């Protein structure tokens, strides 16, 4: 099966500019996650969707970050305006949205989008 697709893989912008990242999850996966991974740290959950509804966005800086998942498939994460501290890898992951046959909710990750803010 095809994996989680993300684009662009790399993006360099000036501070105060805007940027958007796109994610196409595995077909049929109901749950989609956006994580921020700053260099040297573990991924931090920004937002979690179940179909096209938001399950958790408590750590999303809503003054500058927004995310949507129209039609419950693809998702877009936007940053506007960007700050220097937003430099990170933005990871998208998807899962079935429930427990698989082993009783686990396994996430499959995309390769990530690396953002550099100058």
């Amino acid at each position, binding site marked *: 099966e095809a994996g*989680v697709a993300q684009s662009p893989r790399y993006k360099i912008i000036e501070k105060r500019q805007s940027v958007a990242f796109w994610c196409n999850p595995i077909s049929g996966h109901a*749950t989609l*996650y956006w*994580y921020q991974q700053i260099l040297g*740290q*573990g*991924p*931090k*959950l920004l937002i*979690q969707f*179940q179909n096209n509804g938001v*399950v*958790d966005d408590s750590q999303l800086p809503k003054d500058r970050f927004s995310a949507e998942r129209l039609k419950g498939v693809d998702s877009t994460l936007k940053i506007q305006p960007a700050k220097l501290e937003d430099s990170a890898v933005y*990871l998208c*992951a998807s*899962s079935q*949205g*429930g*427990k698989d046959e*082993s*009783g*686990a*909710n*396994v*996430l*499959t*990750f*995309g*390769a*990530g989008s690396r953002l550099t803010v100058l």
Partner: protein
Amino acid sequence: AQSVTQLDSHVSVSEGTPVLLRCNYSSSYSPSLFWYVQHPNKGLQLLLKYTSAATLVKGINGFEAEFKKSETSFHLTKPSAHMSDAAEYFCVSLLGGSYIPTFGRGTSLIVHP
């Protein structure tokens, strides 16, 4: 609240020697626990998962992890390290009724020739 603590930020071993990466969890409920690996400039890949079916879990590439409830631990082991194992390893937890995964800070595994 749930969390995972990875006790070492870096682990350095020689090729052919055993690997031990430590993870402790804190949860009031029976957790689902996972280990993921991240090679440089690559996405996160699932190594193995624990879901209460068996306390000793075997994963890919010769890795294993043992769930010990009495110690609230889920340490990752491998009998013999290869150079290709050099990567960042993350312990991840899910509460029993939650689908919000929480990552540890990661452990960087360094393998010397």
